[in-house]
């Protein structure tokens, strides 16, 4: 490694890092000996910004998502603290980790003629499930798939400011605000597909408003954004169209459905009707349509989901496994799925994250850069990614 070109304070950590994990870096060393070293060289960063070409040897390294991709793909997908971090560091760096790589490798080999495969990220709180989902979604986006990203299903079953009785089915309830917001973000993400895909059915919204058969999807989405009252039904129609059309011989897109906090669909809701009785998630149009999307009776894509304990409504206290969080109904609906465990950082990943924070000038306390401080941080956080972020924030 080019130790003579590295700043002094990184050199010690680099040698320390070398002792911990010789295998991964050993490969890199061989690669370096052959070619001239790329500048600038760092242990924790990789120049490979395309998720499709990332592999095991990049595990623990950070890659950057270009700002244009962030603006189109993640108007609503990233966790709040991570968005603040992106703003502070003026770049969006995501760590390449094993669970996301595993799901991406499966996505690369999906057979588009078979029913959609369901993947579920699960793990303890703060492990990195949402960011792994975002990594997988970025891969789908770079491969040109149509991305249906629901950033937080929990926000659809709680804190609802407006609840209208549904025009389509009298026993269900609409949520116009959440539906319009989601449609707006969907439009930003999938702009190119909106003019290419055509509807296969005629939709009658009110006596005077209807969407003809064969009109572009963009018109459907605009209908939902402009006419707030029918937006939940538009969401349902959109999902139905995409489900029916994907996998058909004529269509040219692959569908990626990404849901964060899928246990909200089968859990409780904290919304109340006017007579203070609780609303079951069954009775919400958005949730009902999303549940239909989660079934694997369509082809030509994949369903990637995350379990979430933090946003859930009255979950059991120490639950993090799929069976505990989804409940019986949810598990039966989601079965069969591929569970992917997202653990806390390994030693190598922790070192990498630490070096990244030092590089971005984030660790300011003089003691945090010493060995003792590092040991104390490991003790306090147990290498939990979100705790590490919170503790290093004020150090």
């Amino acid at each position, binding site marked *: 490694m080019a130790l003579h070109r590295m700043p002094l304070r990184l050199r010690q950590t680099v040698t320390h890092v070398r002792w911990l994990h010789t295998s991964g870096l050993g490969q890199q060393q061989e690669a370096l000996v052959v070619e001239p070293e790329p500048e600038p060289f760092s242990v924790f960063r990789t120049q490979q910004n395309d998720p499709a070409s990332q592999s095991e040897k990049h595990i623990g390294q950070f890659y950057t998502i270009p700002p244009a991709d962030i603006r189109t793909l993640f108007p609503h997908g990233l966790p709040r603290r991570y968005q*603040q971090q992106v*703003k*502070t*560091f*003026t770049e969006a760096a995501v760590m390449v980790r094993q669970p996301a790589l595993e799901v991406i490798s499966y996505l690369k080999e999906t057979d588009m003629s078979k029913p959609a495969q369901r993947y579920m990220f699960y793990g303890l709180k703060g492990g990195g499930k949402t960011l792994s989902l975002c990594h997988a979604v970025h891969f789908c986006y770079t491969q040109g798939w149509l991305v249906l990203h629901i950033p937080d299903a929990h926000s659809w079953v709680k804190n609802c400011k407006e609840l209208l009785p549904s025009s389509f089915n009298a026993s269900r309830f609409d949520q116009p605000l959440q539906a319009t917001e989601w449609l707006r973000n969907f439009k930003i993400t999938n702009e190119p597909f909106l003019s290419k895909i055509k509807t296969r059915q005629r939709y009658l919204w009110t006596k005077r408003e209807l969407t003809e058969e064969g009109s572009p999807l963009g018109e459907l989405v605009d209908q939902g954004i402009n006419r707030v009252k029918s937006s939940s039904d538009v969401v349902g129609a959109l999902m139905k169209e995409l489900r029916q059309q994907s996998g058909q011989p004529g269509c040219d897109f692959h569908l990626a459905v990404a849901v964060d906090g899928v246990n909200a669909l089968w859990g409780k809701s904290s919304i109340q009707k006017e007579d203070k009785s609780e609303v079951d998630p069954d009775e919400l149009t958005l949730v009902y349509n999303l549940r239909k999307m989660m079934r694997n009776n369509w082809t030509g894509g994949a369903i990637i989901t995350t379990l979430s304990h933090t946003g859930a409504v009255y979950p059991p206290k120490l639950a993090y496994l799929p069976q505990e969080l989804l409940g019986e109904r949810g598990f039966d609906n989601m079965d069969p799925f591929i569970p992917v465990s997202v653990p806390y950082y390994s030693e190598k990943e922790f070192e990498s994250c630490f070096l990244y924070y030092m590089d*971005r*000038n*984030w660790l*300011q*306390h*003089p*003691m*945090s850069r*010493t060995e*003792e*401080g590092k040991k*104390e941080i490991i003790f306090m956080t147990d290498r939990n990614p979100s705790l590490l972020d919170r503790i290093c*924030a*004020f*150090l």
Partner: protein
Amino acid sequence: SGSGLQIKLIGRARAGSGFNTRGVLAMRWSRYNPYYLEPEVRKEVYDKPETELSDEEKEEQSLKALRPIKAATNSVTSSVFHDPVISKFINMMMKHGNKVLAREIMTETLELIKRKQVEKYHKAPEGKREEIECNPYAIFHQALDNCKPVVGLTSIQKGGKYYQVPVPLTDNRRRFLAMKWMITECRENKHRRTHMYEKLSQELMAASMKEGNVFKKKIELHKMAEANRAYAHYRWW
């Protein structure tokens, strides 16, 4: 002894009171018998091998085997990140014993200061980067130092009238005044809908740049003391 005990001099001798051999009674804060030793939480003290100890330290160690030790309070840590000034500030911000909330506000303040500065650092061109101070602890200490008054005013009665007399302040008093002004300024003189950590971070950054209301208050106190210089000889201590 560790923290200064508030002492009460024995006034009248009352029948049947017995006599206190020490001559003083501990009245406020610490109710411990002075026989008790302070707990030692620093790791360096225990890491020293036997041979390197000086005679006094050996004596202290032997005393520890004999004398009882006070219970450590919740706020003492052997953490390398422990800062006594910040602990004092957190205690002063605390209301109704809610230390958790006070600590949360302090950490959010430090985080916000660091975030603003690091963002400035990354957006600045190469030449300007060295001037930007990103360390929130340095900014906090600098802000407090800038707000510490050098002299204070006390009310002294002379000939029926009360005069404001400039008087030197002890270090503790100066630190206390700086922190008190900072906290009251943020609680009272800012917009009601802003969070405490936002208000604190703005005021601390301004004070570290020698601007802001708290710095102004210190300057005004100095001016008043300068104006009342003539009465300085009224002080007899």
